């Protein structure tokens, strides 16, 4: 049962107030996309054993979507940030770097791009 801080209303919300929305920072592929790109957008997800950037909605609260950097193994939360961004803010990266080194970040090359 996670607790996440909603970056809009500042509340440390219980998981029962929240709805999860899967991986964050997906790029929408529209009508002109190739089959491969569209498949990637629609179906393929990282599902990492380690750090994930994911979407949550404060559904039983302010109703806003936000993003979370979380470790799927330890359930550590490195921070939350508003959804109106293409990548996590530097402060989230700093927290991750301060707690994880090298291989331990659990980031693969695709994922690492998102962080850079």
């Amino acid at each position: 049962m996670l607790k996440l801080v909603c970056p809009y209303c500042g509340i440390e919300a219980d998981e029962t107030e929240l709805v999860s929305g899967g991986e964050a920072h997906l790029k929408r592929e529209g009508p002109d996309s190739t089959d491969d790109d569209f498949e990637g957008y629609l179906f393929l997800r990282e599902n990492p054993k380690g750090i994930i950037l994911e979407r949550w909605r404060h559904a039983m609260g302010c109703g806003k979507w936000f993003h979370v950097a979380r470790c799927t193994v330890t359930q550590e939360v490195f921070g939350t940030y508003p959804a109106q961004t293409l990548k996590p803010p530097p402060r989230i990266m700093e927290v991750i770097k301060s707690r994880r080194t090298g291989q331990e970040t659990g980031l693969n090359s695709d994922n690492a791009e998102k962080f850079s």
Partner: protein
Amino acid sequence: MSTRLPTGGRFIDRSKPLNFRFNGRKFKGFEGDTVASALMANDQKVVGRSFKYHRPRGIVASGPEEPNALFTIGKDGEREPNQVGTITELAEGLEVKSQNHWPTLETDIGSMANLGSNLIPAGFYYKTFMAPRQAWKHLFEPAIRQSAGLGQPPNQNDVDHYEHFYLHTDILVVGGGMAGLLATRLLAETGLRILLLEQSPNFGGRLVQDHAEFGEGASQDWVDSTLLELFSSKNVTMRSRTSVSGIYDHGFVIADERFPNTSGKSGYLKRRLWKIRTKRIVLATGAIERPLCFAGNDLPGVRLASGVRDYLINYGVSPGDRTAIITNNDDAYRTAIALAEVGLSVPLILDTRMEIRGTLPTRAKNLGLRIEPARGIGEVLGKKTVSGLEMCSQVGEGTSLEKIGCESIAVSGGWSPTVHLWSHCNGKLKWDETKVMFVPDWKHPPIDSHGKQNIFPVGSANGYLQLHEIPSQVEQIVRQVAREFDKDLPEIQLPHTREITEDRCHGTWLIPYSMKPKKKMKAWVDYQNDVKVSDIDLAVLEGFESIEHSKRYTTLGMATDQGKTSNVNGIALVSHNLGIPMDKVGTTTFRPPYSPIPLGAIAGSAGKELFKPTRKTPIDAWHVSQNAHWEPVSDWRRPYCYLLEGESVENAVNRETLRVRTTVGMLDATTLGKILVKGKDAAKFLDLIYTNAISTLKPSRCRYGLMCDENGFLMDDGVVARLDETTFLCHTTTGGADHIHGWLEDWLQCEWWDWRVYTANITDQYVQIGVAGPDARNVLDKLGGMDLGEEALPFMSWKKGILGGHEVQVYRISFSGELSFEISVRASEGLELWEKIHEAGQEFSIEPYGTEALHVLRAEKGFIMIGDETDGTIIPQDLGLDWAISKKKDDFLGKRGQQRSYLTDPDRWKLVGLEVLDNDEPLPHGVYAQCETKNEFDHPKMEGRVTSTYYSPILKRPIAMGLVERGTERMGEVIKFNCGNKMIKAKIVSHIAYNTD
């Protein structure tokens, strides 16, 4: 014979006798007794039958680790199975029944499973019931169901009351023994919010009965004075009888509080489930004694040494006149001394160790007790209960050196810290070779959301069994916890204890060391799941070497036991078999709940009418007055139809349907979703949300629109009305309102967040009334106030106005094919307007109609229904809705998805009408059309299915719609539907059955 002693028993009140029944027989006990202690006092040796072999089993332990004494307590609506007798408090008139026997506890036919002694080895179920297939259904399963399973589920509604309770705290202390009390006492003065939970009715843990070295009487005084101080601390909350059953992520804790003697009493709670959020947890859960593995160790009368001591000191119960002790450590000598001190006989202490030097053995020796070093038990003697034992050399094969008569055997295989809660959230364990136990590994603790350790084990839960070590160790750890809150501990006097030397426990797992295979079949590791030493040997032999595999293969430590007594012995035997050290074998995963929680407590008060909220429209009371027959639609309740006196549901639906077709009917359409979309970019936004163009809609006009997900699958439909240049009202299905609102917000917040669009779900703010039928306009004209004529309000348009004195918006839309208006009015005025329309409609014989008539009317006209014609795999093109899919728009949600080859396949099933031949019976819902040919799996190929089927009263025949392979190209063809016992033929026709022009 186990009996009540003439004196003693610090928990019982001899002035308050209680009567109870065990399997119908009358027994007596005292207030303060547990069911287990009272049964022992009444010499009830056999309390249940084992799971697989149905062997007679007795009480083994005195706490929640008890594997055998599981009872069904109460009768009728109070009945609850699998209650642990050692923690269930006795109450007047309690009905206790043993479980797992057939036909009776004394004579159990299932115990024949025992005869072949190795009839059900490890993996028996996997190996035996493979073939033939038919035998499973008719032979194996009924037989297994008869003999297996723990307890019987209740067969009546639960009459008792339960509730949930939420609490936030800074520090939770689990366990009210010496370590827990001391930790709480130290933390109390920091001002932090402290919650102390103790599973048993009494605080103090094992301090009073075990630790005379605290000083005569001093231990109880210390417990009492500490409790007194804590009671007066405002920031400390304490509960006894509250068992922490699980620790979850981010400091979420579930605890189960019991209220004894409240079952069946109205106005009283039986259980309270605590849902706790805590920043830090101090784990003072103590330790659990381990049994030892020797032949016949499951006979009633063999008990844990600590349990024997507890029954003796806490409840004044003698385990039997003669108790032999077998141990690999010094602690069991406490039991021997306690027995001797009350005048009971301890004929023999078998110690598996070569050298015995500690303070306690010396004291036992001084009491004149016979101690035999390096000795074990070859076999327990006795049929149904213990009558004696054969002494053997521990290092040998079990040759009998001497027969000793005894009624009771007290066993101690050493202690295991109660680390379950530490492990629930990923805390790791390490094997301590010196202490012979798994202890919490502080290098790999459970962590909170910030990555910091959040559980701090203290006392024996942390592996410190010696009393004199505990105070300073607790203080040190608790100080560390307090510092995390920037608090320091007060200087208080720690309890002083005399140091006594206890010798090392010896890791003895098999007694004797070279136990013969035949004896291994009689030596139990896990009483509850009937796992023997031979089963573990076999599992390892067959290659189940990982402890997680051998656990599942043998069922070791499963179910409610959760490895409380069996875990370490099982691991040791695997380690012994494989010749690898304990820490390489590792442990299985402890999972919540630590002790079982009844389903009633989990449900809390959310039962019966509180199980789920029911949404009611403002017209609900009127529907009730008109004898509405209800249908749940998402969280709402809606009238399915309105029953006249003596009318059947079927006739009511037909009557309502015909009313709309012939004169006029009215419908409470309030539940339909209403979402306001407003802003400079609203039109652009809705062009992407709907498959058709919305931006081209003129103000005052309405348009039917479809919403698809990114797969292209049809998700929701409804009428969009443009209120003004920048404002739209989007109607959704009843079930879709919240979900679609969330869907719109998702795209606005996460994809097109720079667009100027705002949404509001205003479903509850308006009542919507449908008035449909040839006389619809005549009824509304009678109310007066606005021109609803063909020119003033053409089809698919809307206007604002005053109707019968109410501000309304009238939408000229139709879901029945008849002349139809939907009138939207403030929710607060809804009932008034509804009644006015009903009144005005009397001269046209207006009648309300329900959801089923609505369905019949729409199906007659071939209109689709989300959830009937769609199931999450249907695209609009399948339903002949190509006209509602824009070809001009560059993009909309689902456009790319619909381009995929599978969805453009011309063989896709298309919506058609289905007409049964020769006045045959109606097609059942959901049946499939079957071809003569076979598919790739050699099964009959399916070529379609029924999505909607009704009786049409206007056409006087059944009508149906369905999806059929290339259906629209096959008009007039007859296909066959497999309806189970018969095939029904149907002709493919237009999906519009009534008034096709």
